[in-house]
């Protein structure tokens, strides 16, 4: 099945694109997708998994469905340090 993957801020810079489509095995979890994406874009290796599926923040055990939109979120840095 296919899922849409979106990258923000640092991640967009590291991978060089804001959005891509990834083919994952049926029943894949968010963690499995993250590992697969880190394999495709090695610049993401070492970063913790933080992501939203269809706009909702989810943890790694979340199972994916075809057509899901997955947003990978770099560590936050809003506000002032």
């Amino acid at each position: 099945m296919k899922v849409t993957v979106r990258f923000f801020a640092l991640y967009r810079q590291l991978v060089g694109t804001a959005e891509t489509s990834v083919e994952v095995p049926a029943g894949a979890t968010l963690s499995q997708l993250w590992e697969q994406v880190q394999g495709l874009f090695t610049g993401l290796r070492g970063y913790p998994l933080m992501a939203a599926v269809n706009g909702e923040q989810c943890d790694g055990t979340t199972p994916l469905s075809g057509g899901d939109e997955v947003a990978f979120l770099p560590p936050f840095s809003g506000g002032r340090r």
Partner: protein
Amino acid sequence: MIELTHQPLSPQALVDQVQSGRAGAVVTFVGVVRGESEGRQVLYLEYEAFEPLAREKLHELAVEMKARYGVDEVAVAHRLGRAEVGEVITVIAVASAHRREAFEACQFGIEQLKARVPIWKKEVFKDGEHWVGA
């Protein structure tokens, strides 16, 4: 009240929103773009959010501040896009009958905003730029 905007922020507008006849104390935190970061001169900053989730998290945060500290009104705003040195990035305004809760809620608000709201900052220097917090 929540605001996530590419327009300049007005701290006074947020203070006016939270103020009421009941509240005796209004505590406001305003975060401003500094002209310097770790010894380097900053030209400007750029803020980006994952907007729907960021709005939801800001709303959750405001609700939690009220519940946790028993304050009357809370307003939280964050700027997006390019922000120049001296411009306002964040405003957190808290109105309460008593000042202790207002200070505590405001401080909690800014700490939590940084920890849990999907907003990212890019620092732009004369000779380069980088995303912060990663």
